[in-house]
């Protein structure tokens, strides 16, 4: 196949065609996402063990979380995932400005998520429910309570870091899309940025029931 001018600009010389290049990029992203899944799984496995060992303490500590914050944040993240998917659709029909607007909307939803996180964190900071030796709370203070709060801050904190990274990626890619950097034929960065954000959403879908509901 003779590549046309739109595709040659983005084709690295070691790839036979843009399609092969994009397939390789996608596969690489999935490999990275697999490592991310395993990174979070370590924390989930720790949570599973200590929840098994200290069931009543974990249930009591989980009940003292504001469930509505978790619920609202789930709705916010799921919606932002939808707007990112729609942003990907816009660039696949060649509408870079539409992608920019939808990605910026997703970043805005990311800020809403972090805002609720701030409200929640500051409450538990003041309640002394911090990890390790900074744990000073005496409410629900079974032996498992400090472990629950340590895992709570580790899991939601690591997830929060991923939200911030994802927002940065979406903002940069969205801005470039608005300036016409991508086209119908070449928009693999938009797709990969979207994949990352969907993974952040996917992780939260499991964090929500584990931390807030059970």
């Amino acid at each position, binding site marked *: 196949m003779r590549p046309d001018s739109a595709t040659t600009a983005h084709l690295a010389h070691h790839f036979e065609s843009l*399609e092969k290049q994009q397939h390789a990029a996608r596969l690489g992203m999935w490999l990275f996402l697999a490592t991310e899944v395993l990174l979070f799984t370590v924390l989930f496995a720790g949570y599973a063990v200590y929840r098994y060992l200290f069931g009543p303490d974990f249930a009591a500590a989980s009940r003292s979380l504001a469930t509505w914050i978790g619920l609202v944040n789930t709705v916010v993240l799921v919606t932002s995932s939808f707007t990112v998917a729609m942003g990907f659709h816009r660039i696949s029909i060649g509408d870079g400005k539409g992608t920019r607007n939808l990605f910026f909307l997703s970043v805005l939803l990311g800020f809403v998520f972090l805002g609720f996180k701030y409200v929640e964190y500051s409450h538990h900071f003041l309640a002394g429910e911090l990890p390790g030796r900074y744990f000073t709370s005496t409410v629900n203070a079974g032996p498992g309570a400090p472990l629950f709060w340590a895992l709570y801050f580790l899991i939601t904190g690591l997830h929060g870091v991923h939200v911030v990274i994802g927002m940065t990626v979406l903002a940069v890619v969205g801005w470039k899309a608005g300036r016409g950097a991508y086209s119908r034929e070449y928009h693999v960065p938009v797709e990969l940025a979207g994949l990352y954000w969907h993974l952040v959403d996917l992780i939260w879908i499991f964090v929500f029931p584990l931390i807030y509901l059970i």
Partner: protein
Amino acid sequence: MAGSVEHEEEERLSHSHVGRYAIVWIALLVLTLVTWWLSRFHIPGAWGVAVALGIASAKGALVALFFMHLWDQRGANRLVFVTSLVFVALLVVITLSDNATRFPLANPPGSEGALPLAPTDYPGGPPVPAPRDGPGP
């Protein structure tokens, strides 16, 4: 070679999926509300955990298949993701079953079936007894 698998993948990805995205989004919102609503009943024992994780897995599958396009992609990407899920299962199940099948005293004090806690093990614990005189044990 335009008729390659890469080409087919690009073809499938370039179709419009707006309707599909909207349906998945609504399904995710509904499942979120359902899992929150069910959690208010405090389903006893392991069933509450099973229901919550079952719904979360369904939501995760919707995101991975349709938002992340695994539904449309060829084998390699699916294989990578499924492999990571296998290792998730191994890591969680083996670690958990280790602790669950131990001689109870091998688990940390104060946990399921293990020794009771020493008084100073956690804040708000039982009062510390006065130190005894004389040499230690």
